């Protein structure tokens, strides 16, 4: 019964935050080329025909114009001028499909590989990865969610595998610092009083739950004092790297994601919402596109400079695409059949386009990639078997990527 959204937790005893049930250190499975994943999740549904799938009939593109990129044969829309110069780092997947056409269900499916049900909550991919890859010596959580939106549920897995949420990249983790009115000495004194109260209470009322609370306080203090917690503080980043980014919140989120993977965090989800343009798309889309254009371009540069792009799989995903027909309100409606996602790094076939839609934009045609296959591919690249199985509390087995299969041909 005790599942927990948003939050990872400390287990019952033993305390090395937050990884009590972690397997001992083990080598990654052979074949794994990625150590970390950054998933830029565009909730609302990115319009593929106004971004990265421009190889369709001209009328499908609406008002979008086409830009050449720095790769022969790859073109993007005019809203992505910065990324146009970095398409050699990106694989464009134009043949994505899902079976969900409404936002909550679509987001759920993309992030968990399962259709939403009311009898069980499935873990997000990040939680599966967190559980599979966390080792005892890790000092940071392996699933961090940055930005507004769905933080990252552990579903039926133990709550400790859910995402650590960072709502605002500039603010870091909520309440991780002492209250401003409380000095270090004061906190120490308070903790002494607390210890004495708890010790006394334990004599007559101690249970494994009271113990678990005492452990969690220790764990939280350890976390507050951990040297790695400064990974969450953007002001600690070198000027050279900070300069790569502009000051927009999404760019700052990307900067934080880059810092976290540098410290070894396995899965970072960066949320960038707002793509649901049913009307006035060409008034509203450019601003959001610009955020993605700049933030992602800076992130790719950041990872390249740090030598992390070889070991970091960056993916840009969304729950579904938009219809080829621009509606009378100058917007585009939901379109689950044939949309676009991106990948970069970790040996992906960068500078290529994978799959396509029909020229009229109505459906994915070649090399169709279902969202479950997409997730299976990410897991496989991290060295995790996409068929990895976990049981829900009722004993029902679930596989990491549902029935998805890794598309190994996306990598060279």
């Amino acid at each position, binding site marked *: 019964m005790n599942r927990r959204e948003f939050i990872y*937790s400390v287990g019952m005893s033993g305390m090395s935050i937050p990884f009590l049930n972690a397997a001992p250190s083990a080598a990654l499975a052979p074949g794994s080329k990625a150590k970390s994943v950054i998933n830029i999740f565009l909730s609302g549904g990115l319009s593929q025909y106004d971004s990265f799938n421009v190889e369709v009939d001209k009328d499908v593109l609406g008002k979008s114009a086409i830009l050449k990129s720095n790769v022969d044969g790859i073109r993007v829309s005019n809203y992505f001028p910065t990324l146009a110069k970095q398409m050699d780092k990106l694989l464009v997947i134009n043949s994505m499909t899902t079976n969900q056409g409404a*936002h909550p269900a679509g987001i759920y499916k993309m992030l968990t590989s399962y259709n939403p049900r009311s009898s069980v909550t499935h873990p997000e991919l990040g939680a599966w990865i967190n559980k599979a890859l966390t080792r005892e010596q890790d000092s940071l959580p392996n699933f961090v969610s940055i930005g507004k939106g769905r933080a990252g549920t552990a579903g039926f897995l133990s709550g400790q595998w859910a995402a650590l949420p960072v709502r605002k990249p500039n603010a870091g*983790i909520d309440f991780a610092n002492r209250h401003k009115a*409380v000095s270090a000495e004061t906190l120490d004194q308070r903790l002494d009083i607390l210890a004495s*109260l708890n010790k006394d209470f334990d004599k007559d*009322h101690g249970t494994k739950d009271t113990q678990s609370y005492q452990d969690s306080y220790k764990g939280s203090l350890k976390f507050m004092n951990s040297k790695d917690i400064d990974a969450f503080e953007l002001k600690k980043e070198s000027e050279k790297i900070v300069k790569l980014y502009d000051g927009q919140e999404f760019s700052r989120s990307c900067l934080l994601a880059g810092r976290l993977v540098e410290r070894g965090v396995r899965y970072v989800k960066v949320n960038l919402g707002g793509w649901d343009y049913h*009307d006035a798309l060409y008034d509203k889309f450019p601003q959001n596109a610009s955020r993605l254009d700049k933030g992602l371009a800076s992130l790719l540069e950041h990872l390249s400079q740090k030598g992390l792009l070889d070991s970091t799989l960056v993916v840009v995903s969304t729950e579904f695409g938009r219809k080829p027909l621009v509606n009378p309100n100058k917007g585009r409606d939901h379109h689950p059949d044939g949309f676009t996602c991106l990948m970069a790094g970790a040996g992906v076939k960068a500078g290529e386009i994978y799959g396509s839609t029909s020229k009229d934009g109505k459906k994915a045609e070649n090399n169709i990639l279902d969202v479950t296959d997409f997730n299976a591919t990410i897991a496989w690249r991290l060295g995790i078997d996409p068929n990895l199985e976990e049981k829900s509390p009722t*004993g029902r087995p679930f596989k990491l990527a549902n029935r998805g299969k890794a598309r190994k041909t996306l990598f060279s």
Partner: protein
Amino acid sequence: MKIPFIIFLLILSVTASAVADPRAHAREVDQIMATELKKLGQEARPQIDDYTFCRRLYLDAIGRIPTLDELDQFIADKRADKRARLIDNLLNSKGYNSHWYNYWADLLRVKYVGDKLQHPGNYAEWVKESVRTNKPYNKFAHELINANGKLYKPGNGATGFYAREPMALDHLANSVKTFLGMSIECAQCHDHPFDDWTQLDFYKLAAFTSKTYLRVDPLPADEKEKFAKDRKILKNKSFDEWIVYRESLRVKHASIYGNGTGYSRLPHDYEYNDGEPHEVMEADVLFGSMPVIHYKMPKDKVEKLNKKQFGPQINSRKSLANWMTSRENPMFTKATVNRLWYRIMGTELVGPIGGLDLESTGDHPALTEKLVEIMKVTDYDIKAFLTVLFNSQAYQSKALALKATPPAYVLDGPIVRRLPAEVIVDSILSLRTKDPDASVATKFRWDGFTHFYDKSRNMTVKNFVDYSIAGPGRAKFQRREEKEAKERNRDLGPKSLWRASAYTHNDGQYLASILMGQSTRDLIDSANTQPDIPQILYLMNGHLEGHVIRNPKAYLNQKIRHEKNRAKRMEMIWKAVLGRLPKPSERALFKHKQADIMWALLNSNEFKFVR
């Protein structure tokens, strides 16, 4: 058939009206436990003092600690029956409505889902109203299972139970878990691996609710005749107007349709030998006696229909509700008693609340049997049942700290356990204000959509078109209606002093409640009481400092301000936070700064646990 059933009910209600005082039932419970303890040679637990009782009862009955005034008042009361009086008072106070709403909302997954207007405004209000009026639990369950009609009609919020989960088979599995405490969802797709339920059983049960569905738009004929033309015009004219037109029509029309045909069909991939894919199944219950169903179409005729047809509606759903909530149903009362026992005592009387078997009787069958009998005799009156539990010696005895090696018998009283999330935050509230229950509603509260439904009753087709032109955009539509709805409601005072139950889907979420483990209401009974780092960071470094510890306006600080004597001030702090006087050994702590002591008490396990 109907007449004898009514007579049967009459006999029962006569029996019920002759019910003994709940305290007499409490003595019966005590007696059963005493016998068992004697048999096992286990000593009875010591009784608790007034301080412990007062704190425990406030927590369990109304979901918060007593304020300093309330505690002092109870301690000062010299009447011999003051405990029984407090029980009655609290169960009839506003605090009860708040606390038990949170509980049922977790069970019933009262939540705004978004998209298709699966909006529980009215659902939440229906649950609150049921708690306020102490609706008998069997009636409560019956109304939920048998709900239909308009979603936004004031008072018809029970439809939220279906709207919340319109997938028929999932909904059925959830209903069985909710009201019968059994987990049959596996049988939805295959024979249950460890229980007796087969997929065939599941589909026979599903026949009762077949063709029950949520539809948010007007019915097709209505749509074609009245709305289709304007819809098309608006769609080509303006997205914002079109969407207001769509949403406003939905608010008016969204309904739970269908009440069961009494037939289902096996799934297309049915693979067992006892049936064929798409074969028509007649309704049948999992166990117990089958209610009579008056079919309008014989099975062989239904079989000849198209594979998607299940025959005419005959309100077989009502038969299901009758069966599920019947006194004779071997699971309904047992599951209910088990659930309430677990809520109050923390132990499993019969078994896990969502994982009972037909055979489950619990570790002490005689106790289970007695409590089941009391539930029936009190006519599923939750307050009466709680009165029995609270008046029992068991409830008023020392809480057991459950260790790895528990005593032979653990049902003789509550166990030490962490408080529910909302109880922790509402307890913090009790240190901040003199009247922590001020925000608890005493009557139906309007939300925007329900308000619009109310307005729309006299709206013509043209009015809807005009309305959509007048106010563009879905978000603005909702905001405008919420604003008007707000004016119809009593102001609940500053949000910072609300109890957790006052938050609706329009109010955002209360961060502290979520951090403490409030149910996300995605699944049945999904609240949790585990610690985690964000929760502890909040308690150590978060709002307690500004809300309570250093807040001169906090009621506790107001109270102690005038007390010059330091030791007396400390006593007040101990009573306010922990509900007891400081122990002699704790007096050594008095030397510390007041703020530091408050912080430590608020962060202590004792504050977060019921003892």
